[in-house]
């Protein structure tokens, strides 16, 4: 019998979605719960936020928590600092990582493989181990408690170099050879041929770095002392007191701090998903 002659499928007891969804939907709900709770608490009174068992459906919504949180601390400064921190490190990573990655991907020099292994090895060292040496270097540079000190150690990452190198190596070498014959310098090849063809990888790296910098807490905590140099995540921690915490204000601040990530996610959803699929890493 020809495939064309096959009888039409019997209308049956088929789910209108994949059976996998029966498993995935509860998982998604579990993942969503903390976020929902964050929003709920941010709209409760201090008393409701402290009550036990927790109030999951508040009787009234207190949007006033948002201006209250905003006015308790200089959140405007925090946002500006975070934006500077995140955007500068994204730009730095895109530039410096691609330069290093191109050298590792395509150039021949003594000790290249050895150096690359050393680069990779740094990925295996826990961040906490690097914290003190990094701090000492930044201190020597006289950059403690400044946005510069926040940014400098994060301008280039071994992870970014590794990721871009892997991507550059997948580009056909003939394109670069053709450009060489057409009269392009090494640097010209990187900027005119390789980078325009690496936009997916660059977008991925940019998003990962942005998320990482925006949500970074530990390094700002170590390097920043003054309130007006703090990025948002550090600023939020200032809402936590030693003896008591106003959870409703803290959650309102947290919701605000996540708005830029949400906006980026809405615009760059495709790249977010690809970045996780591409690297297998969700930092």
């Amino acid at each position, binding site marked *: 019998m020809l495939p064309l002659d096959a009888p039409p499928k019997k209308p049956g007891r088929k789910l209108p979605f994949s059976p996998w969804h029966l498993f995935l939907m509860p998982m998604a709900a579990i993942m969503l719960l903390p976020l929902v709770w964050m929003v709920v608490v941010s709209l409760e009174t201090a008393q409701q936020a402290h009550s036990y068992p927790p109030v999951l459906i508040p009787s009234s919504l207190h949007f006033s928590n948002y201006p209250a949180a905003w006015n308790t601390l200089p959140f405007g400064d925090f946002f500006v600092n975070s934006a500077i921190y995140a955007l500068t490190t994204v730009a730095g990573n895109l530039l410096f990582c691609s330069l290093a990655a191109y050298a590792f991907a395509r150039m021949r020099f003594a000790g290249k493989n050895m150096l690359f292994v050393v680069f990779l090895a740094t990925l295996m060292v826990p961040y906490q181990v690097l914290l003190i040496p990094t701090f000492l270097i930044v201190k020597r540079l006289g950059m403690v408690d400044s946005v510069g000190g926040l940014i400098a150690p994060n301008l280039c990452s071994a992870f970014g170099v590794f990721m871009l190198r892997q991507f550059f190596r997948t580009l056909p070498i003939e394109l670069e050879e053709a*450009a060489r*014959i*057409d009269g392009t310098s090494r640097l010209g090849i990187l900027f005119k041929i390789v980078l325009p*063809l690496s936009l997916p990888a660059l977008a991925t790296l940019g998003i990962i770095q942005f998320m990482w910098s925006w949500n970074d807490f530990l390094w700002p905590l170590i390097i920043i002392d003054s309130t007006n140099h703090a990025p948002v995540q550090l600023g939020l921690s200032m809402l936590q007191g030693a003896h008591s915490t106003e959870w409703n204000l803290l959650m309102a601040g947290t919701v605000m701090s996540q708005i830029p990530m949400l906006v980026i996610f809405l615009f760059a959803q495709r790249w977010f998903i690809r970045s996780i699929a591409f690297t297998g890493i969700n930092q």
Partner: protein
Amino acid sequence: MPGVILEEVTKVFPGDTVAVDHLSLEVADGEFVILVGSSGCGKTTALRMIAGLDKPTSGTIRIGERAVNEISARDRDVAMVFQNYALYPHMTVYRNLAYPLRQRRMPRREVDKRVNEVAEMLSLEELLKRRPAQLSGGQRQRVAMGRALVREPKVFLLDEPLSNLDAKLRVQMRAGLKRLHSRLGITTVYVTHDQVEAMTLADRIAVLSDGKLQQLGSPQDVYDHPANVFVAGFIGSPPMNLLRGTARAGQVTAGQLVFERPGIQDGDVVVGLRPEAMRPVVDGMPALDFRVDVVEPLGDEVIVHGALAAELIAVDTDATDGEVGSINGTGIEAVARLDPRQRPAEGSTIRLGIEDSEVHVFDALTGLAINV
């Protein structure tokens, strides 16, 4: 316009792989030379060294008078068409064509003029705003040619430019290439493994095997007078039948085939018979029996596969190991090309003759042609 000269050029890759072995070659000004050989014979490496993409281990490459070993690819004024075309995927056809000119800081107006000229020459006017991904194979090939030509280079290098096209398009592009060359007269070095391209396009062909030059000459000359058994087995389709034979007192014997070759030294020889040189026997012709296995009618001719009444031998034309053209065992089958009116029946035995002068004789030890 200058020619290209290779003097004793050798390329050894890490791991002691000798890709090109003391290759000497002169391409005259305006000449079309084709490097032909099976894959891995070093032809592409030779081309890449001329382009400046690979550096020779030893030897000198000259373009015109100038030794270019130490000159970078971009300063050699050569243009290259890659096998996969290497069009910049993120640029339109127009920008692809303009790119080599922009890199040389040519004024915008001049760039525009040249791009349009080349586009017209290669019928690309309609495609200028498209990107490579939106083009067919043949169109991409033309854009690649255009990008190489737009700069009016001294030397034009092509690496298997037609191998990714379908058969019909390949014939078309081949003719187009030939027209283009006779019109522009740019010195051209062309690499292919396809001997039809080599025979039809080249002023001269250079047959390479195992990194060594086997023979250099006009296509007809190489076909008529192969210098050794490798060339004999490689050029010509279907390939030459090679038989084991002996020479004694001016007479050569290979199975049933016996013919005179006055002055030949006694010893073992290889006798070569072109499939198209064999025909039904006429009185006095050297001849031998041919048992017909398979008949392939092609309309204008029939290709007959079978066994000859002589010991067939095979020659290693892939040359991945050992001696070039080394005789590596017994040949599987003989091939003859006959007139369709002489189509034999499968399973029958026919007697095929050959003109004395059309029999090739090679030394069995060295593989070199014996001309006496």
